[in-house]
């Protein structure tokens, strides 16, 4: 006997995407909604747990970006153990953490670009679905596929050397890190046999950028226009305005480049951000208080970071940054598909940062941890691959976590993704009464540009579990498609 199993939100961590598209009497798209079944239960799970357990516990939120949660939690706890934020750690503590973080950005972005995004570019949004996947890339563009695998492996090995394991390690502890880098590890990453060394990785980053830029030149319409829209952008930046993915102040700019969040201290994020709850979505909608619910939504992630940062503090990525900025005459870039371009610039920046760190003797010796006067509350914010990630904890007199608040990047991008879906739906579905595979993929491409973690569970196969419903003007279901 066959049985239908319904997976409720409680059993899934950020699981399934659902899109409903409502048509009007003339079969034009009237409204579209992206529902993401997101599981916020971790904020409850951690209550009552000893605070130093949080970095290891909350990373279980996700199988794809655990390192980001691990580090964001550790950063919040740095504040609680009185180690301060960012530069408050010992040089070894901060640099090992950074190395872990850049390894994560590197491998996550590589996975996203090569495994998830490149099939759409190589085979077209409505290309043959039998080819338009990572296997198709492997068959027809072998060198790209090999690079993707090796680059991802390199990033994962960095994570293993710093966190102890490729997935769900324990390296970051409140106030620092639990290990040094060994001489053998350092040598492996710097001078490993081809291709497993940092110079080759940097080479390949350039190769990926060239590939993208070449594609862009040939496909301006798709890359510049697909689901493009102006928006606000938010990210951390270093105090001097440089891109900094690990630590900094919060900056927001609007579509014209005006500062709407002026380099504020992370500990004060609640003064500036709020979250709106909507009846039709499990996921909240964060916004900037100063602009209000209607206008205060913003994008986070690679594109946002290109728009907030004044410069990139590594030379090769800075050159690419200048090309990127010149494309919009220095104005904020709202072209959704440029997320991919931005992501590739960040891969290069991460590789350069890894090289710099690997050559730093502080990784191999020095105090691992530090602490000071204990605090009751701490906020840890970093730039995860997909965007700004907020972790906030408060502890009671017994060292147990009393309150946790997490804002993951996918949540910040909730409104922008909805906007992207709407634009894709209008472009591909106006006048249509049934859903084709190409339309379905167009909606996916708009969502995929954000690399949301709703694809966590099935990331590796390049498929996101998505269901699309098409409703007529009376709300009657006229077509449905899922995969």
């Amino acid at each position: 006997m066959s049985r239908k199993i319904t997976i409720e939100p409680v059993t899934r961590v950020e699981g399934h995407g659902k899109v409903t598209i409502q048509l009007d009497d003339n079969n034009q798209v009237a409204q579209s909604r992206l529902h993401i079944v997101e599981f916020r239960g971790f904020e409850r799970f951690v209550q009552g747990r000893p605070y130093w357990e949080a970095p290891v516990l909350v990373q279980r939120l996700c199988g794809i970006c655990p390192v980001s949660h691990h580090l964001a939690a550790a950063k919040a706890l740095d504040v609680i153990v009185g180690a301060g934020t960012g530069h408050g750690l010992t040089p070894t503590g901060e640099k090992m953490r950074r190395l872990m973080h850049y390894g994560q950005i590197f491998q996550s972005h590589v996975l996203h670009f090569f495994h998830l995004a490149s099939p759409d570019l190589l085979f077209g949004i409505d290309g043959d679905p039998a080819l338009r996947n990572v296997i198709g890339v492997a068959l027809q563009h072998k060198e790209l596929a090999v690079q993707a695998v090796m680059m991802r492996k390199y990033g994962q090995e960095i994570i293993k050397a710093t966190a102890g394991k490729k997935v769900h390690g324990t390296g970051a502890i409140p106030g620092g890190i639990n290990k040094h880098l060994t001489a053998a590890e350092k040598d492996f990453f710097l001078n490993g046999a081809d291709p497993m060394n940092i110079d080759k990785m940097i080479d390949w980053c350039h190769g990926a950028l060239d590939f993208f830029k070449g594609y862009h030149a040939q496909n301006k319409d798709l890359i510049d226009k697909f689901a493009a829209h102006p928006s606000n952008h938010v990210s951390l930046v270093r105090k001097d305005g440089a891109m900094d993915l690990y630590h900094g102040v919060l900056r927001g700019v609007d579509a014209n480049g005006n500062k709407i969040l002026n380099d504020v201290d992370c500990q004060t994020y609640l003064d500036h951000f709020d979250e709106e709850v909507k009846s039709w979505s499990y996921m909240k909608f964060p916004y900037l208080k100063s602009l209000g619910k209607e206008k205060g939504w913003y994008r986070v992630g690679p594109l946002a970071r290109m728009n907030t940062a004044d410069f990139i503090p590594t030379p090769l990525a800075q050159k690419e940054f200048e090309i990127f900025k010149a494309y919009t005459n220095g104005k904020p870039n709202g072209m959704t598909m440029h997320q991919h371009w931005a992501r590739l610039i960040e891969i290069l920046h991460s590789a350069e940062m890894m090289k710099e760190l690997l050559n730093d003797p502080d990784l191999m010796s020095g105090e691992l941890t530090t602490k000071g006067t204990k605090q009751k509350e701490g906020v840890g914010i970093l730039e995860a691959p997909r965007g700004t990630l907020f972790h906030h904890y408060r502890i009671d007199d017994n060292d147990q976590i009393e309150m946790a608040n997490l804002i993951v990047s996918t949540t910040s991008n909730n409104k922008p993704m909805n906007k992207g879906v709407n634009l894709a739906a209008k472009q591909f579905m106006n006048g249509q009464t049934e859903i084709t595979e190409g339309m379905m993929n167009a909606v996916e491409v708009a969502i995929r540009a954000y690399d949301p973690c709703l694809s966590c569970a099935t990331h590796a196969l390049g498929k996101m579990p998505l269901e699309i419903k098409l409703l007529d003007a009376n709300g009657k279901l006229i077509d449905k498609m899922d995969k």
Partner: protein
Amino acid sequence: MSMVIITINGKEFSAKTGEMVVDVARKNGIYIPTLCNMEGVIPQGSCRICTCLIDGRTMAACTTPVSHRMNVETNNAELEKIRTTIVELLFAEGNHYCPTCERSGNCDLQALAYRFNVLVSQFKQIFPTRNVDAKNPKILIDHNRCIQCKRCIRRMGGSGKPAWFSFKDRGHKVKVNIDHELTADFTDEMAQKAMDTCPVGAILKKEKGFDVPIGRRKYDTEPIGTEIEKEGAKL
């Protein structure tokens, strides 16, 4: 003190009268798995992991004193089955989430599960509702992970000394109680000793955890018991 001769796994060893089988085996490089037993602490034989075939009967090696011409078999398929079942029962009975526990890699219960290759429990998880007692400034007890082995009670208190730890309630509700008044001025050393006494992650020293990196934890490189067996190989 008189000496006796006993046979363990077909080999003869001399031992002092009054010594427990488990201790004689250990001294001679033969590993008998233990959990509630701890060297130097009065044995109580409650967990039965150390069950051996002694003169043809299954008995707890930690509470059975040697006698002259005793014959001990420490391992066979049936004993292995008994031990595996005990480990599975312990996992089903508590809330043991190894991935987020700071004793992972350094936990006797987990190490035994690995040694016996326990991948899933044949018993249904009970998922009991238990709490964390963190009122003491130096240590906390996570009742979710307590296996009621009483090692803390026997080693950290006992005859003459004040009862820092004791059992409260009975049956399936039994739990370790920590006397908050008596332990209010626990030193760091006492806290560390309490944590080291606990074979699992139930007693934790506060504000420090996960400081040993993966790969360097007690059971990361060798299964539990290997140390004893290595000594045995040298003899």
